[in-house]
């Protein structure tokens, strides 16, 4: 026991001095260098040490974050994946799958994790993976992608790439690995995006048919659209995503429509919804097929947001 404590304190010392080095050199990233013992996550205190060894990830954003940081060996189970992994994050052997949907608490605990990392706050509930309090009392740490915090005081006022970088460095700190390479890559991707200057307006059509569910003013859709030079017609709604009305869409007659492609509501289904409704069939974007496509898993804030923006910018440039 004493020896164990010794190792821990030496490790802490080493980590501390490394952190000190990091702060003395010009910081390449907003890395959380002070040796805090806990991080605040959607208003919930999460102990920092020791670095998690056995992680259950819920939703694609959390899985992909760990893969992007080279932490695939720490994942003991994935659940509720929104779609296939992007090519650059594919693993040689498939990751273990606990459940197609939100796993129950018992399934999560059976995997014996020391961290459950979820893409949505609502994944932690009594009828889901268990509440954060419950899991904490069993010694299991929990972490929610901060962009998905729902309480007003913790939700990003308006999501920026800095928020996403902060999640990357926070996770890197937690696992005691470096975020520098990933963050540098993200910044390079963003730098490479040629912003469209035509002043085009856009609808981000996420799901729904009678009542469209669209990207609103403060979440990842708005961030991506702003990055590539599109003006979101639903930007005035102070929410990440929101229910909208076809009448408002028609009144705005957007120049392009971003279609979110998912297995349950594919881009083709969305196109047929738009074309079969006589009122929306006459929209400029529908008549001229001015569509941009984004996979659902890339449409939520995470390591794919920059790539999604770059991809959509390329598609947009190809639209006359």
């Amino acid at each position, binding site marked *: 026991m004493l020896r164990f404590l010794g190792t821990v304190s030496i490790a802490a010392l080493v980590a501390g001095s490394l952190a000190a080095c990091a702060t003395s050199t010009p910081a390449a990233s907003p890395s959380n260098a002070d040796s805090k013992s806990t991080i605040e996550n959607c208003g919930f205190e999460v102990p920092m040490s020791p670095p998690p060894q056995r992680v259950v990830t819920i939703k694609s954003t959390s899985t992909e974050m760990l893969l992007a940081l080279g932490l695939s060996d720490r994942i003991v189970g994935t659940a509720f994946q929104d779609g296939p992994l992007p090519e650059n994050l594919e693993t040689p052997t498939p990751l273990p799958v606990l459940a197609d949907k939100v796993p129950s608490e018992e399934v999560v605990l059976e995997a014996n994790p020391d961290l459950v990392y979820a893409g949505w706050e609502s994944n932690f509930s009594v009828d889901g993976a268990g509440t954060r309090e419950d899991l904490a009392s069993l010694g299991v740490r929990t972490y929610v992608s901060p962009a998905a915090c729902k309480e007003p005081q913790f939700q990003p006022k308006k999501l920026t790439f800095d928020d996403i970088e902060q999640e990357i460095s926070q996770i890197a700190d937690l696992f005691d690995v470096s975020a520098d390479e990933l963050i540098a890559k993200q910044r390079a991707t963003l730098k490479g995006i040629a912003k469209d200057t035509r002043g085009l307006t856009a609808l981000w059509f996420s*799901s*729904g048919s009678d*009542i469209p569910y669209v990207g609103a003013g403060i979440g990842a859709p708005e961030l991506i659209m702003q990055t590539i030079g599109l003006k979101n017609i639903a930007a005035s*709604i102070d929410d990440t995503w929101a*229910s909208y009305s076809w009448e408002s869409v028609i009144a705005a007659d957007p120049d392009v429509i971003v279609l979110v492609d998912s297995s*349950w509501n594919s881009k083709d289904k969305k196109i047929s919804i738009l074309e079969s409704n006589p*009122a929306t069939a006459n929209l400029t974007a529908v008549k001229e097929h001015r569509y941009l496509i984004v996979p659902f898993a890339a449409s939520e804030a995470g390591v794919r947001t920059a790539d999604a923006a770059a991809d959509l910018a390329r598609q947009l440039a190809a639209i006359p």
Partner: protein
Amino acid sequence: MGAYLLLSTLLLGSIVFAVTIGPANISAAEVWTSILHHLGIGESSLSVLRDGIVWQLRLPRVLTAAAVGAGLALAGVVMQAVTRNPLADPYLLGLSSGASLGAVAVLLIGVSLLLPVAAFIGAMIALALTLLLAGAFGRITPGRTVLAGIAVSALAGAVTSLVIFWTVTGDSYREILGWLLGSLASARWSSVWIGLAAIAVAGIPVMLTGRLLDSFAFGDTSAATLGVNVQAARWSLLTASAVLTAAMVSVSGSIGFVGLILPHAVRLLTGPRHRLLLPLSALLGASFLIWADTAARSMFDPRELPVGIVTAIFGAPVFALLLAARRTET
């Protein structure tokens, strides 16, 4: 007669006024020149898209709301009279749960039927099951029918939940939730025709049965002594209101409150005579749902609410006021 005139004017005025309201900024004059243009009178200056907002979205939606409101109110009056149960509503015999199951089958399992057709089939299967169950072990009575309806509702509701639980992925639950809460967002001209056809086939005949329904109020025996073939009359009335309800559910999901409370509200105003109660409930139900839906689609512009939320939020306090006013009178 005054009440007829008043409520008919209210309904007409509601239609004329409600189509001019919506998130898109189109003036009342433009709206009505567009509608008149489609009816073959004059020319409209609106662009194709803005004309589409009026003619393809707003007008069919307002007319569907009117038909659904009238149909649900009528079915509510009939159910309450025939079962002699003031808590009866159009959904009593398992109709809405059956229709919901049909809709869920289309939306989530991908059964390739048109949604209204599937909802209608679901409702009729539930009704048939209810009547079978009620008659299976003896004479069919109103009490047995209601109990059988509750059992069928519970079963269909459970299967619906099971399907949702097993198949919902990502955020597709949002769509099914909107439908389960009741929504007129999908109203198109086809919905208008379904609604009006149901009113014509089942609603208008029901409206002429005021005397018959009055006789039910005194009980089966008294009704029989008044020369009514009680069993035959009861089944024709139940079937008519089931057809009415199934058609309405198929275009709008299960909108609560209208069928249960509206007949009581009208009764507070006019008394229990069905000859008045039936048509007045239909007229007021139509206006009520038009306004509830107008609020649902414009109050939180550009967002939309399922209208079922609005009917209850506005309907409950209004009904409470009516109750209070009535108490001070008597």
